[in-house]
């Protein structure tokens, strides 16, 4: 009798195990969480003119073709700006997943520019707790115009190469809040080796803000705004009614546009009051006034090529 009771208990004890077998995969226990960084905060490495939180992936070459047409207020005579165009051609490459470099040449002011962008912090999807992405962008540019055409040269000034250079340092801090919404802040400084008058600052403090709203899987709405702190810059020619502006003759850069993604290309179509396509240009030399219709229609085309394939991460 003792033995049969014992067996009964033993048998009953085993039954729950049998019942629990509904889900075989549960037998493997909890999966270890793999570290996963947030991807696709923006469709490409630029919001419009400014840098976005995204980098060109490791081993990927991104060929950028940027166009800005003339001002819309040119009217029918200028075909609403389409009679003029400024172009920037650029190449960007991802050296690692964190580090990206790029070069470009613009027809506007015959600027040649180069930059490096490094992701210090990466927003994390799972496996770690980082809530935001932080990148540093350092860029420099030089105008290759003839000295007689450089607007900030005065008669008889010695033409040093270093005088033609300017630098920009930006910090990008942002977060992809959801599939639909990404926001970023970009405090920065533009250093110009030579300025036209003593009243102007060599170091121009600025702060930008940008965001993206994803409308459909392949279409997003982007906007960016760069605020230049007052009293730092002044254009060569200032209309009398604009002498009291925070930075006489210059306006803050505001751009709004759409990202359209088609396989290997991203098309960015936008409206902006900035003509230049590098930091010195769009932050410190924007002359267009949105309210007066000084708006460029423009586009950026990004075409990526995988030139080097990093080895897949080791599977243990």
């Amino acid at each position, binding site marked *: 009798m003792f033995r049969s009771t014992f067996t009964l208990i033993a048998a009953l004890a085993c039954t729950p195990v049998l019942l629990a077998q509904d889900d075989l995969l549960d037998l*493997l226990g909890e999966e270890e969480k793999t570290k996963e960084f947030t991807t696709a905060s923006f469709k490409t490495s630029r919001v419009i003119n400014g840098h976005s939180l995204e980098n060109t992936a490791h081993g*990927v070459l991104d060929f950028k073709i940027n166009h800005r047409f003339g001002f819309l207020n040119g009217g029918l005579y200028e075909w609403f700006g389409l009679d003029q165009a400024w172009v920037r051609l650029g190449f960007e490459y991802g050296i690692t997943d964190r580090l990206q470099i790029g070069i470009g040449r613009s027809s506007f002011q015959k600027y040649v520019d180069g930059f490096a962008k490094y992701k210090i912090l990466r927003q994390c999807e799972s496996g770690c707790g980082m809530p935001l992405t932080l990148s540093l962008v350092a860029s420099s540019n030089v105008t290759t115009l003839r000295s007689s055409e450089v607007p900030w040269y005065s008669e008889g000034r010695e033409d040093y190469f270093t005088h033609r250079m300017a630098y920009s340092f930006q910090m990008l801090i942002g977060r992809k809040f959801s599939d639909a919404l990404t926001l970023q802040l970009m405090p920065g400084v533009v250093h110009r080796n030579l300025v036209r008058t003593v009243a102007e600052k060599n170091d121009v403090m600025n702060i930008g803000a940008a965001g993206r709203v994803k409308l459909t899987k392949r279409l997003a709405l982007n906007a960016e705004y760069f605020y230049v702190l007052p009293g730092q810059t002044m254009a060569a020619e200032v209309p009398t009614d604009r002498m009291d502006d925070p930075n006489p003759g210059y306006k803050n850069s505001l751009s709004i546009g759409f990202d359209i993604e088609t396989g290997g290309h991203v098309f960015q179509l936008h409206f902006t009051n900035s003509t230049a396509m590098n930091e010195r240009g769009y932050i410190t030399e924007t002359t267009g006034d949105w309210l007066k219709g000084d708006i460029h229609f423009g586009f950026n085309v990004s075409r990526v090529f*995988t030139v080097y394939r990093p080895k897949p991460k080791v599977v243990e």
Partner: protein
Amino acid sequence: MTKHLILAALFAAPLTLAAQERYATRTGHISFHSDTPMEKIEAHNHKSTSVLDASTGAVEFAVLMKGFEFDKALMQEHFNENYVESDKFPKAGFKGKFNGLTADDLKKAGTKEVTAEGEMSMHGVTKPVTIKGTFTMEPTGAVKASSTFTIKPEDYNITIPGMVRDNIAKEITIKVQMDYVKM
């Protein structure tokens, strides 16, 4: 007599338990391939999990969509963001039963063709499927299962825009290779 029968039955219960032959893996290899004249696409995942209960033939597979690695970083991003929507539907899986597979089959060296019947789920859609596969039992006792089959993206509500329709095959070939270890 009745008492003895009950006793015998009770003894039998733990015995069936002991006879449960479970095999599992966490490093299963699942890949998919799309071949068109325009573009060749393939992606590999070496971290799929599977558990097989040889005593009943029951089997389950699971794979994390974000674990698929592509040749091109942008393809991988588009796959997760636009096609399978990995944030919303992180896993794909199969739950079913092997027909005609017994625990003893897995103990004899050799190969055995099997059919699995069950439900495949991906991108929030679950569909009944029947998949053919092969078990290979090596003399060392290792149990390997492999299978090649095709699926249509539209069966799982994965829409492919007209612009890239010619770049992605109508039927995607899936290859599965599992090296099971006894649990």
